Every structure is written in structure tokens, then in C-alpha cells.
């Protein structure tokens, strides 16, 4: 038994799929199992998941990832749970069933909640305490909406009969026994990174803020206990017993760890459903003057909290998914590159995918998506190109904000995520940023970072610095575009964004 190799596992619960990956001591992937879940769009601007379906997928892929690598559960020294952030689940701990569909981070339905809260509480004060602008992206307005959506939900919450959680809490509660499994009941926990996205946690105290709980009408009893990101979260009971859970951490913070960006000044950009630029600011809580949010990067048990500035982009790969699922333009997301490569430019077409309003650096809840510059000349190839360019230009917007906050321009951008498989997109990002773009040897840094965090929790790795040796450059794209063309297209992009903003502001619009 002594010589049996041990591994770390990570559960990565994302916006479109959930995956389980197993890594060895060198941070190399040994196994992967993944599955997509259904996404529900019941009305314009609404996005929902079935939390029960997501848990049933977790139950399948965890054993599958182990069996594909021929591993027993006792060879997994620790499990890390990482997740799409902000997505809000409320469930009844006696039945183990969610009381409603989970409201996803992209959902825009909570406008009325935000208006009311804005009247009762100073938005600047909310920003000071939580690091977040008053925007529908975060959990608190979603939780308020959900508790108002059914009879007696608020009363049941006040009586302590309902639990709230982001996906980390929901999955960990189920993994550790849920409503009752083999004599165990689930533990109700979250970590500082996920809690920092709720708009209910104070960044200084790292505890729930009573004033914000009052203004959103959320009883403390339904909230999970906030832990460091690496900690002892108990053992799994279901679907496999006895695996120590060593880490809970939000997906973007996990990828910052996966890139081994442990020091202040280090940054990364992950391209997934959305796109997220995070800059580690060390133990200092830095306030952005250019539209970035302040968030917790991680907290290792016994250590100080480390903070980050974040530029969040709601729709990146999500726009490509939409081209597949809603337009039928392509059969698989990767085909967007094939289509886009058929033309040398966008033919004058620009897409601003403000499906969830616009996030950083605009933080506009009302903006709506637009496609402009259409003429008979424009083909689906041009549109495919505009779709990819939308992600590149949005990245430019948040990198500009980060450079303005930092006072010094970044010299290169570390990227990761599934969309880095798109070489054309990566070239576009290098072109519009005018700096080299570098991909590390494990593109799935979210799962890797959760694995790292779990391994650090149990001493599989002695300290974060050891992990740096695993970071290797796997690909690099350098700017090739004519600078005059870049400036011309940047101006067009900015004009398109202002149109998306003004389209959302026209009077008399009611999304619901």
C-alpha cells in the first residue's frame, strides 16, 4: 500500500458542463470525464440550471474518472471542488431537493431588486464592503428574487428550513451526505472566494455582513459557513466514500492558482463561457478606478487572504455556443474557427454580445446584444469572424482597464481555458492587445488549480512555490496585425459598444 501512487482529483462544475480530472504529483492529467448539462432559457434574459441534474452528473463522472485511470478511491489523496461562481441554489435539507431551478450568473432578471436595494442602501458603500458594483451578476439579488418567487419561501427560510449555496456548497453538501447517506448528513460550507461573489460578504472581515443581509432580507441561518479555500472539509460519502475534500474555490480563482500566479502582480485570462482576467494584488484590497471588481483570490488555511482585481466578461465562448445551439451556424464550437478562417476580415460586421448586459469595465445591466455593419457583402464567414473578434475586443477592454489601474502596461498575457484551442482567436487576442499571448502546458487550469489547492491542503505538495516548476509554456502567439488596422478596428468596436449601451437604454423596455 505504501508504494501505491496517489493522485489529486478535481471536480470542475462549469456553466455548460461538469468535469472530473485526476492529476499526478507533477500536475499532469491522468484522467478526465465530463458531461454537459441542460441549460434553460425560459424568458429573454433568464438563464437557469437544474441543480439536481448537475448533482446526478457529478455522481457519474467522479467514479468514471477514477475507473478510466484504473484507480481506487483510496488512491485519491484529496479532492478539490471548483465551480461557476454566483449561480444561486436554494434547497430543502430534509428532502435534499432544490426548491426552484438555480439562477445562473448570466441571468438578468433581477433589475427590480437592484432598483429597490439602490434606494435603500448606498451603492458605493456596497462596493466598499464587497468590492462589487450593484449589478445582477452577483448572488444576493438572485437569492432575493428566488425567495420572493414562491409562497412561503421567505418564511421557510426565516424558520431555518431552507439552505442557500453557490454550486460549491450544493455539491459539497451532497458529496458529504446530503439529506442523509449511510448515516451521514451533508455539511453546509463555502469558501472565501465564492462568498466574495455573493455581495453579502465583507472583504475585510471575510464574514457575512449583517447590514447587507438586512437590506437583501436574507436570514443568516440559511447561509453556509465561510472557510478558507484550502481546509479540511470532511470526507465524501456519495458517490464514493472516504475521499478527503481539501479545497473549495471559485473557478476563476482556481485558474489563477492553476497558472501558479501566487504573487502580487501576476495575472491570467481564462477563456470559457465567459472570459475572466484576474490580477493578483497580494494581501492588499485594491480598489479599481477603471471598472474592475475586487475579489478574494484565495486563502490558504492558517494564512492571510490574498486578493485580486478582476475584469469579468459575461459572454465569450457563450457566443460561440449560441451560434451552434440557437443559430445552427456550426455543428461544434471548434468549427467557428474553420468558418472564420474562410475570410481575411470581418467584412465590416461587428457583434457586441451583451446578452447579460455588459460586465467589466462597463457594468451596465441594460445593454443588449447587437450585430452591426450588415450589408449584402457579409457572409456567415464574416459573422463567424466577428463572433471571435468580440471576445478579443472585450479582452482588450479589460486589459486596458487593468493597465490603467496598475499604471504600467502588462508585457504579455497568460491565457488558458478551452477556447485557447482556437488558434485564430489567440492570434486575434495577440493582435488587438499588441503583446504576446502565452498558453501554459495545461489549458484546463481551473481543474488543475482546484487540484493544486486540494493537494496543498493535505500536504501532497509542501508549498505553492513547488508548483511553479510545473508551469511550462505550451504555445505562444505574437502580434502580427498592421497597427493602423488595429486602431481603425478598435474605433469601430468602441462605436459598436456604445450602440449596444444606447439600445438598452431606450425607454419603455421591459425584458420580463
Amino acid at each position: 500500500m505504501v508504494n501505491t501512487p496517489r493522485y489529486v482529483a478535481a471536480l470542475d462544475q462549469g456553466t455548460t458542463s461538469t468535469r472530473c480530472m485526476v492529476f499526478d504529483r507533477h500536475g499532469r492529467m491522468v484522467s478526465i470525464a465530463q458531461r454537459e448539462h441542460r441549460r434553460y432559457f425560459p424568458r429573454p434574459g433568464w438563464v437557469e440550471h437544474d441543480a439536481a441534474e448537475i448533482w446526478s452528473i457529478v455522481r457519474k463522472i467522479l467514479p468514471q474518472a477514477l475507473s478510466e485511470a484504473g484507480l481506487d478511491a483510496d488512491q485519491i489523496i484529496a479532492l478539490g471542488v471548483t465551480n461557476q461562481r454566483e449561480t444561486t441554489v436554494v434547497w430543502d435539507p430534509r428532502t435534499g431537493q432544490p426548491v426552484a431551478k438555480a439562477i445562473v450568473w448570466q441571468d438578468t432578471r433581477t433589475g427590480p431588486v437592484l432598483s429597490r436595494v439602490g434606494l435603500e442602501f448606498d451603492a458605493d458603500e456596497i462596493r466598499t464592503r464587497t468590492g462589487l458594483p450593484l449589478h445582477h451578476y452577483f448572488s444576493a439579488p438572485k437569492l432575493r428574487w428566488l425567495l420572493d418567487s414562491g409562497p412561503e419561501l421567505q418564511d421557510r427560510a426565516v424558520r431555518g428550513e431552507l439552505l442557500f449555496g453557490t454550486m460549491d456548497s450544493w455539491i459539497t453538501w451532497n458529496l458529504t451526505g446530503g439529506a442523509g447517506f449511510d448515516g451521514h448528513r451533508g455539511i453546509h460550507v463555502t469558501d472565501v472566494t465564492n462568498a466574495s461573489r455573493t455581495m453579502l460578504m465583507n472583504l475585510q472581515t471575510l464574514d457575512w455582513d449583517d447590514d447587507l443581509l438586512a437590506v437583501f432580507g436574507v436570514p443568516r441561518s440559511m447561509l453556509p459557513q465561510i472557510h478558507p479555500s484550502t481546509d479540511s472539509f470532511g470526507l465524501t460519502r456519495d458517490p464514493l466514500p472516504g475521499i478527503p475534500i481539501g479545497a473549495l474555490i471559485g473557478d476563476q480563482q482556481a485558474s489563477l492558482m492553476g497558472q501558479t500566479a501566487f504573487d502580487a502582480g501576476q495575472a491570467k485570462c481564462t477563456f470559457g463561457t465567459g472570459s475572466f482576467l484576474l490580477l493578483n494584488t497580494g494581501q492588499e484590497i485594491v480598489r479599481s478606478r477603471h471598472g474592475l471588481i475586487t475579489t478574494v483570490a484565495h486563502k490558504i488555511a492558517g494564512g492571510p487572504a490574498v486578493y485580486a482585481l478582476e475584469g469579468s466578461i459575461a459572454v465569450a465562448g457563450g457566443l460561440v455556443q449560441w451560434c451552434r445551439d440557437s443559430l445552427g451556424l456550426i455543428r461544434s464550437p471548434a468549427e467557428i474557427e474553420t468558418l472564420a478562417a474562410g475570410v481575411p476580415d470581418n467584412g465590416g460586421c461587428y457583434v457586441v454580445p451583451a446578452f447579460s448586459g455588459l460586465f467589466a469595465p462597463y457594468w451596465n445591466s441594460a445593454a443588449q446584444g447587437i450585430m452591426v455593419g450588415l450589408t449584402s457583402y457579409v457572409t456567415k464567414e464574416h459573422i463567424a469572424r466577428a463572433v471571435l473578434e468580440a471576445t478579443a475586443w472585450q479582452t482588450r477592454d479589460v486589459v486596458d482597464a487593468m493597465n490603467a489601474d496598475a499604471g504600467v502596461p502588462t508585457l504579455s498575457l497568460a491565457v488558458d481555458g478551452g477556447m485557447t484551442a482556437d488558434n485564430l482567436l489567440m492570434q486575434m487576442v495577440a493582435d488587438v492587445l499588441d503583446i504576446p499571448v502565452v498558453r501554459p502546458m495545461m489549458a484546463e487550469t481551473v481543474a488543475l488549480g482546484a487540484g493544486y489547492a486540494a493537494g496543498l491542503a493535505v500536504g501532497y505538495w509542501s508549498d505553492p512555490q513547488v508548483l511553479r516548476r510545473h508551469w511550462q509554456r505550451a504555445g505562444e502567439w505574437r502580434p502580427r496585425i498592421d497597427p493602423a488596422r488595429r486602431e481603425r478596428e478598435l474605433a469601430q468596436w468602441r462605436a459598436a459598444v456604445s450602440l449596444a449601451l444606447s439600445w438598452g437604454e431606450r425607454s419603455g423596455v421591459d425584458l420580463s
Partner: protein
Amino acid sequence: MPGNVQSVERAAAILRLLAEENEPLTLSQVATALGLAKGTAHGIVRTLQEVGFIEQDQVNGPYRVATEVFRLGWTRLDQNELRSKTMNWTDALAARTGESARVAAFHAGRAQVAHHVFRGDGGTQVLVTGSIVPLHASALGKVLLAFDPGAGRSVVKTQLTPFTHRTIIERVSLHRELATVRDSGWAGAVGEVEPGVAGIAAPIRDAGGYVVAAVGIEGSIDRLCDDRMRPRAGLVTHVVRVGRAISRELGHGREW
């Protein structure tokens, strides 16, 4: 030699018949035209419909050839799709071997690099995605030649270019080499494209078992080969395993 399979012959006849007629044909018309019992014709027609080769507008309506049949051969795996499916495993391969990893597929008459992962030593490297690999001289190319009939056909009448004195340019030797590749399930190329550079590659199969691409590593002969200039067994194992893992990702031998 075993005899022809009668039902396959009959299926081919039905396809030919439907393709030649301007109007869709009913089941009885098909049976009459080919002199088949209606029950026999029905079984074959239903099977052809299930595999997507023929179709009908309405239940019990007449049959015609499905457009799918005319697209056979152009539904090859998209190169960018291939890259996105292989990325995790090629990263793991490069990390495990310390060498640069590549995926190549035979596409539009050429073996093209669909994905490239840098060697982890930090030296200056440039992505070679989209470049062409020589079929008869590289490890990736040999795998495609051995398993992909299209690739095999493409070199029948061409001169085999000698890149180095080790490049195989004799057809007989190449055929022998490809037979070994098929038997062993991997290919090696030692100093055959460029002096001092070796490669090891293995096939990637789709859900049906068809070889759609090759995955491999490339690096200096000193690192990739033993002192008798043979690819190191440990590295071969890594490459073959990753080929299998990617094939599983594409549905080979997996239920879902």
C-alpha cells in the same frame, strides 16, 4: 476466398436503383425492379434508412437516396475540432515526455499539423500548426500512410523525396515499414526528415475505429532513442497510451 455477401450486393443494387431514378420509389417498385421478395427488400431498405443512406418524406412514403450518401468523404473530422478534442491529452503527453507534441491529419491531399504543443524546456519555439509533414519520412506521416487509405493512395505515383540519407525512398522498404507500423500500432522515424531529429507517433481512431489522425512527439535522437537508434520503449508507451486516450475521447470503445 469467401463468397460475396448477398445482402450487401442487394443493398448496393437498391442504392444504385434509387440513385438512377428521378422520382422516389415505393417498396413494391424496388422489390419488383430487382426481383426480390417484398419482405427481403423491406429488411434491406429499413437497414439502409437506419444508417442514413436512404430516406422518405413521410412514413410509408416512397424512398430516395439521402444527401448524406453524397457527402460521404467530406464529413472528415474538422481540424479545429480535432485540436480541441486532443488538447488536454497532448498537453499531458508533452509534460510527461518533455518533448514537443503534435497532432496531424490527412486533409485535402496533405498531412497537416492540426495541433502543436511546445517542448517544456523554455527555449524559443514557434507554433507549426498548419504546416505539412512528409508522409513517408515522419512518424506522424507513416501512421497516416499505414492506416488512412486516402493518405496511402496519395503517394502511389509520386517520387519519395530523400530528405536525409536515412529517408526511406524504396517502395518495397516503405511497404515493409508500414506493415510493421500496422502490426505494432505505432511508428518511429529516426533522422529521416532532418538529421538528428526523431519522432514517435500512434493512431487516433474515431468512434467507428477509423484512423482520423496521428499523435506523436518529436525531439532530438539522443533523447528519443536508445544507443541502438531505436525509439525508447517508455516513450513509445506514452505516445500509444495518449493515442488510445484521445480515441476514447472521440468515442472509440466508449458507450457515451
